[in-house]
């Protein structure tokens, strides 16, 4: 009986104490008709040795392709210390820190995380994480609509160059509440959002909020100051969707425009979370102090104990569903505590200088990759504005076939932009973080050249 410690003597003694003959008798309040027989479709139990063998085979099955996909999930170096400490039982198997006195480790760490996120975004307060960047943006939008008391509108401006999966997630989560997402087209040449595009939409307003993605899905840098000022001049709140590694070198949302963005959110995955096939990651969400009571998710505060000694506790729980039920700011309770543990340790180990170096190395690699690939006839940059971290490249042949041919050579050549942006087809979004070497990039370039030559 795996994970059940009872001996036969224990069972007998316990049944005797309860006063029943058998364990089955304990289920006697359940209507007989509902009790099931076998679970035929569930396989018989395995020993750890056996499941280990199976999982090792499966983990190995898919090889170790050289990956140049970014598109919202980035392959960064993670210090060995990060997961060795995160995996400690006291973090891994701890409960939500509702009993603050028995959870000071997690609580202090979350407070430190909140402090790191406010430092990176330049905003006042942060929550202790949400599920991921996309669902976090959905919460940001709901929050902005609730919080914007000046413009009572259910409309939110969302750029088309926001990550397509984020756009879909937004759609799933916010539309049942009657919120309308208004698309902002991107500039055909620059890949960015222009003031002209915004002005063209103005008549559809007023808007509760404007979403700005920096860098945007194409890796292109937006003119965040102008966009922020445009929105705030119209009483719309500004939600920045940002990459925490990029924030080490890019202007933080709190500094955007003349007043700063109101809300910032994003995916914390680049801070110490492995690609992991897509999750678990962690969304972060920061805002101005004024909106703190509209902030969803758990928040840790510093307080004092009976002796006046500093300590940490979950606070503002009156916003939350387990207190407010149907009046809560969100239904979210579970967050991504363990991932935040990794993110906090990761960020502490990197520090501001380390994050800057990582960001700069990613930028350098990504530029270098672009240069190498664009030496191939027919490959060229799709947009003409500065990019960061990744690049959209026009391809001289159908991308699906190219990607298949590259994959057969154990190269994952990027994200096929034509799938979500037919107007860009054929184009690839490629990424090379600091972990890709010159040799890796040369391999990609030479393989692509070969593939195209035979295409």
């Amino acid at each position, binding site marked *: 009986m795996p994970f059940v410690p009872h001996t036969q003597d224990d069972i007998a003694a316990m049944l005797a104490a309860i006063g029943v003959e058998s364990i089955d008798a*304990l289920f006697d309040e359940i209507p007989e008709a509902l009790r099931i027989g076998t679970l035929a479709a569930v396989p018989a139990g395995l020993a750890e040795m056996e499941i280990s063998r199976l999982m090792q085979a499966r983990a190995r099955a898919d090889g170790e392709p050289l990956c140049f996909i970014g598109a919202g999930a980035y392959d960064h170096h993670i210090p060995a*210390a990060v997961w060795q400490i995160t995996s400690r039982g006291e973090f891994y198997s701890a409960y939500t820190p509702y009993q603050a006195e028995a959870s000071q480790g997690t609580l202090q760490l979350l407070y430190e995380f909140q402090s790191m996120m406010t430092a990176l975004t330049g905003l006042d307060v942060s929550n202790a994480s949400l599920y991921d960047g996309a669902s976090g943006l959905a919460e940001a939008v709901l929050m902005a609509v609730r919080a914007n008391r000046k413009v009572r509108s259910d409309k939110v401006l969302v750029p088309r160059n926001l990550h397509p999966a984020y756009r879909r997630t937004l759609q799933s989560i916010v539309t049942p509440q009657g919120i309308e997402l208004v698309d902002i087209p991107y500039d055909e040449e620059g890949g960015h959002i222009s003031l002209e595009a915004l002005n063209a939409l103005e008549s559809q307003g007023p808007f509760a909020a404007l979403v700005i993605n920096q860098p945007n899905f194409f890796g292109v840098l937006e003119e965040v100051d102008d966009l922020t000022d445009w929105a705030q001049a119209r009483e719309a709140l500004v939600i920045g969707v940002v990459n925490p590694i990029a924030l080490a070198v890019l202007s933080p949302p709190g500094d955007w425009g003349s007043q700063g963005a109101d809300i910032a959110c994003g995916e914390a995955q680049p801070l110490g979370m492995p690609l992991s096939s897509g999750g678990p990651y962690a969304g972060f969400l920061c805002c101005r102090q004024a909106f703190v009571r509209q902030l969803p998710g758990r928040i840790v505060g*510093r307080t004092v104990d009976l002796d006046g000694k500093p300590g940490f506790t979950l606070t503002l729980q009156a916003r939350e569903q387990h207190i407010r039920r149907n009046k809560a700011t969100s239904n979210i309770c579970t967050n991504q505590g363990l991932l935040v543990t990794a993110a906090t340790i990761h960020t502490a180990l990197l520090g501001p200088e380390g994050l800057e170096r990582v960001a700069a190395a990613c930028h350098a690699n990504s530029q270098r990759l672009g240069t190498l690939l664009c030496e191939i006839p027919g490959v060229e940059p799709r947009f003409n504005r500065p990019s960061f971290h990744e690049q959209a490249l026009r391809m001289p042949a159908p991308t699906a076939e190219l990607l298949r041919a590259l994959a057969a050579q154990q190269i994952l050549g990027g994200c096929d932009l034509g799938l979500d942006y037919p107007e860009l087809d054929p184009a690839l979004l490629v990424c090379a973080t600091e972990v890709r070497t010159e040799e890796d990039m040369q391999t990609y370039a030479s393989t692509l050249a070969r593939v195209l030559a035979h295409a």
Partner: protein
Amino acid sequence: MLIQEGSKPGRRATAQAPLTRHALDDLPVALRRRARAALPEVSELQAVRHYTRLSQQNFSIDTHMYPLGSCTMKYNPRACHSLAMLPGFLARHPLAPASHSQGFLACLFELQDILKEVTGMHAVSLAPAAGAQGELAGVAMIRAYHRARKDLARTEILVPDAAHGTNPASAVMCGFQVREIPTGSDGDVDIDALTRAVGPQTAGIMLTNPSTVGVFDRNIQRIAAEVHRAGGLLYYDGANLNAILGKVRPGDMGFDVIHMNLHKTFSTPHGGGGPGAGPVGVSARLEPYLPVPLVTREGAHYRWLTEADRPESIGRLTAFGGNMGILLRAYVYARLLGREGMRRVAEFATLNANYLMTQLRAAGFNAAYPQRRASHEFIITLKTEAKEFGVNAMDFAKRLLDYGYHAPTTYFPLLVPECLLIEPTESESKEDLDGFVAAMIAIRDEARTNPELVKTAPHRMPVRRLDDVRAARQLDLAWSPQA
């Protein structure tokens, strides 16, 4: 001390960043950060020591028993962690093509099948990232179902008063109104009240069974019939699935949609507050609305089903389809248990709960529903103790920490005064349960002889009782360099 307070300008864990400092001159100055972010500058040893020591200030399953009702804090097998963290799984990009994802997708596909079988549902989506997101997805599917039938008058979701707070919150997130149904004195839903409440405005009902008062609702088949007759659907909150795993199936009870908390029933770690995973299962009529992505097998080949394959889907809930690493842990756990092991989960969780209730009652504590079997959990009410000694449920809870036991869930469900909701789970031993009873008796003795000791507990934790009111009034939510 905060990691930020141990920071010193210029200190670094040098090995952790690229040795070369690349230039960023090509980026427009206006878009660049002006002042360096106030992040901690510490050495590698400093960080390792700081977080190792912080960790030691936590309770956790690996160090303490958590008799925590509705939360199923049981042993998280270590193999689930190491096998989900195999490099092949960790290095896989979420957008890697199916050609390079077969091993990974096979695990998810089989997990879908296992969850279908143990819940008795027709189809399962693994997409929701947590229980509350599973609820959102479930209610969204109920909404989509009625809308597809143009049945737009169904604006109301019924929720028992004992339900988890996420239930009404999720219903509201989907644009429904919530109507509460009272619980009867025997712990079952007040069936008459329910009958009165259902009607053409009923979109569905959200139920936990066994409920949060720790009993199996004996009228479940009748409830299902009533709601279905009125055209509503039944939603099963899987928080308490551990109580019936392998014994009874929500699908057989008549539920149309269910979410499961893998971080409860399937023993994936709570991680200090997440990540969870909240797969949803549905009956055949709701299948088209399942959130994407799903995994399908075509011949020997696995692939994702996405929006393109499922045009009626309620959509995508996270960017990349869910908490994959958590799903892998649950898969490993399910394979370790196997079908017999699943059944044992419910059996021994129930044995432990009934034994613990029996022993606490024998020691003079009052059960909220003494005439009922406990399911995997049960409620003790400390009303008498509170009145006699002025020591309330929270004081008991805090003092239990000193005795090395995490507090049970307190003051939930709201309908029982001074309550402790206690769920020992199947992975704790008889000795552990006996130890908990002894601690409860000892605390009651203290409450009698030295109530102040209990009222000011805990005394053996890294901090004494914290001032929650001050935390909410004098908000201090982030360190800043000026502070």
